[in-house]
């Protein structure tokens, strides 16, 4: 008897995700992003953010847990999951010796996008990202911002339903960062979910519908900025201070703060 899979409102669902290297990098992570949602993943260095995203993108196999992308079991059928997904790491994955247009043609070929459609989308994306004038220049002379835009165009050419980004604004100047942010915000509503890690809390605060805070490979808090502020106030007991009327930075620091060691607490007492 065929198994019935109910339709899911989630673009991304993760349950009990585990990945160990020398120590657990991701430790029983549960996370869900809704369709049309912009989800930001925050966490201190080494919290397991990039490892999580690499597992979602199919670049790394988890030791345990499940990943569903747009209802597709990404571990059972990684090729089908990759077809509806785009992955952009912090370092742009482009070829120096290809032009942006050739790069987009290559990516379109990998995702089997129909050539006429791909050519039209390429023109549209290059124009939209301000790369039209350099469309036939080799990428080797491009700045970091231009390279990131080429990578972004490559990620969008097959119209993914889930876009996964790892620190996409690292090294970008203010103008390029604003442009990339507006593209991502627009795409989140238009094509599906955007899941992004960032260390720039202001970006998460302004762009994300919901924010997940990850520490030691676990999701320790999740919600809108307001919800996180309230949660930080409750857990850290700093309502009205750092948690209540404080910024997301205060809330974040309160949430990820290490519990004081007993010896240190005794000494302080």
């Amino acid at each position: 008897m065929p198994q019935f899979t109910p339709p899911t409102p989630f673009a991304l669902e993760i349950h009990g995700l585990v990945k160990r290297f020398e120590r657990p990098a991701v430790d029983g992570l549960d996370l869900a992003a809704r369709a049309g949602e912009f989800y930001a993943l925050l966490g201190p260095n080494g919290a397991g953010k990039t490892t999580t995203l690499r597992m979602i993108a199919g670049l790394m196999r988890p030791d345990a847990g499940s990943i569903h992308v747009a209802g597709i079991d990404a571990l059972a059928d990684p090729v089908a999951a990759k077809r509806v997904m785009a992955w952009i790491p912090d370092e742009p994955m482009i070829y120096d010796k290809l032009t942006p247009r050739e790069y987009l043609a290559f990516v379109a070929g990998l995702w089997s996008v129909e050539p006429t459609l791909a050519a039209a989308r390429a023109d549209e994306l290059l124009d939209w990202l301000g790369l039209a004038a350099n469309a036939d220049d080799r990428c080797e002379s491009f700045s970091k911002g231009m390279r990131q835009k080429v990578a972004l165009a490559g990620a969008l050419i097959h119209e993914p339903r889930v876009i996964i980004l790892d620190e996409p604004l690292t090294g970008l100047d203010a103008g390029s960062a604003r442009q990339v942010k507006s593209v991502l915000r627009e795409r989140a509503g238009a094509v599906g979910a955007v899941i992004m890690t960032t260390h720039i809390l202001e970006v998460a605060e302004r762009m994300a519908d919901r924010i997940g805070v990850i520490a030691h490979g676990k999701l320790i808090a999740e919600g809108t900025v307001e919800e996180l502020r309230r949660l930080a106030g409750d857990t850290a007991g700093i309502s009205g201070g750092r948690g209540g009327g404080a910024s997301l930075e205060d809330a974040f620091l309160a949430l990820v703060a290490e519990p004081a060691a007993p010896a240190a607490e005794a000494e302080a007492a």
Partner: protein
Amino acid sequence: MIESGTVVWFARHESRLAWRDWLAMMTAGRRARLRSVTIGFVAFVIAMHAVAYFMVGRYAAAAADKPMLIAITATVLLSWLLMVSQAMESMTRAFYARSDLDLILASPVAAHKVFAVRISTVALVVAMMALPLAAPFIDMLVVRGGWHWLGAYGVIFAMGATATALAVALTVALFRAIGPKRTRLMAQIVAAAIGAAFVIGLQVAAILSYGTMSRTDVVQSAAVLAFTPDAGNVLWWPARAVLGDGGALIGVLAAGVVLLGAAIAAVAPRFGEYAVAATGAGDSRVSEARPAVFRPMTPRRALRRKEWILLRRDPWLVSQTLMQMLYLIPPAVLLWRSFATGGGGGAFNLLVPVLVMAAGQLAGGLAWLTISGEDAPDLVAAAPVRPRLVLRAKVEAVLGVIALVFAPLVAALAVASPRHALVTGGGIVIASVSATAIQLWFRSQAKRSQFRRRQVSSRVATFAEAFSSIGWAGTAAVAAASPWLAIGPAVIALGVLAGARYVSPHKDAIT
């Protein structure tokens, strides 16, 4: 305490960098390997001395007659051209690799001092690189012939100095003539051509004159003896210096110092200027028609196409490929001569292993570039394409290039001798597939720009690739004469492959 900013201070800094660079190259960045590398190096030096002891006997007490002077001069010239090639490559890298250039140019020190030291270091390194091969022979000549042979060491350092001076002049001349955009590629091609030209030129001359690929026969032939100047001519000074003539040695050393000094004085003050001009000097414009880019293609075809475009546009690879192609010139001449004279059986037997060996080596380099030298590994891994299919497409890209290069030669051979063509074709396919398989088993992520260092990432892979190519070349050579006898070398080549497969690392990455 050395005063900072002086030439000596810079020299210490440069020598430390050069030493660490060499150490990292020999140990593949793993300090734990230092001991085994040292033991291996010492064993190599001892073995080379043993080999040299038995080889130098007839030369140790040789008189400075004309045949001897010609033989030594030819050896010196060959080594010197290789040094020029090596120095040109170093100079090109010095101009185009940014590394610490910004720091030096932004600091309040006289930049020409560091560049003078840098050029001198190139000369020293080029000379030092010749020592592991030359020193055992010189030492054994000293043991068996006398102290006068020590002059050869002086000649090596003079050769390093003059080779670097010429390399500096050539690189700067290219820079001025064709501009920084094209110099990088041209310098690499010129360096490769210089390195190969002498060997190949002699082989071609030998083939045309004598129908063999022996170089020693041609340099000591009656025609060469008659054509070359008298024994007292300045042309023989380097050879005389090697044989222990003190006056000639001083002259050769003085020429080296003067030429290198002149090159430094001319270029060091403007070195920074050249290096800055080289920044971002990529030839970035492409004149391909827009509509042709987007074609109906499967992911496999997209991957193959991408690999071929990248291979075509890789300047370093162009020069490497050119080197491989240059070594195909002698067999091509041999083939052409066999056609012209109507002979061929023996010559074809010689051709078969050369072509098979060249195919194996070329396939190894290409396979590294396509498999390990993937500049966007995450993009390919994140695409909806099965990893097996990605690798298959990359292997097809390699074999496609091999087919393109070798098919015309095999086709020409088929007209003259179908049996030899069959053996050669089979050998080329097997050697190429074997070299590609070794690169697959030992694949490790690297930037394409690190091609020069691919050998140090896995020494097992490097040796396995070389021995596999030699094994299949030997198999093809024997098979061309007697197919049944080829079973022996084929088993050895398969053993090399099996051993490489056995020790290859097991990857848990999805790609």
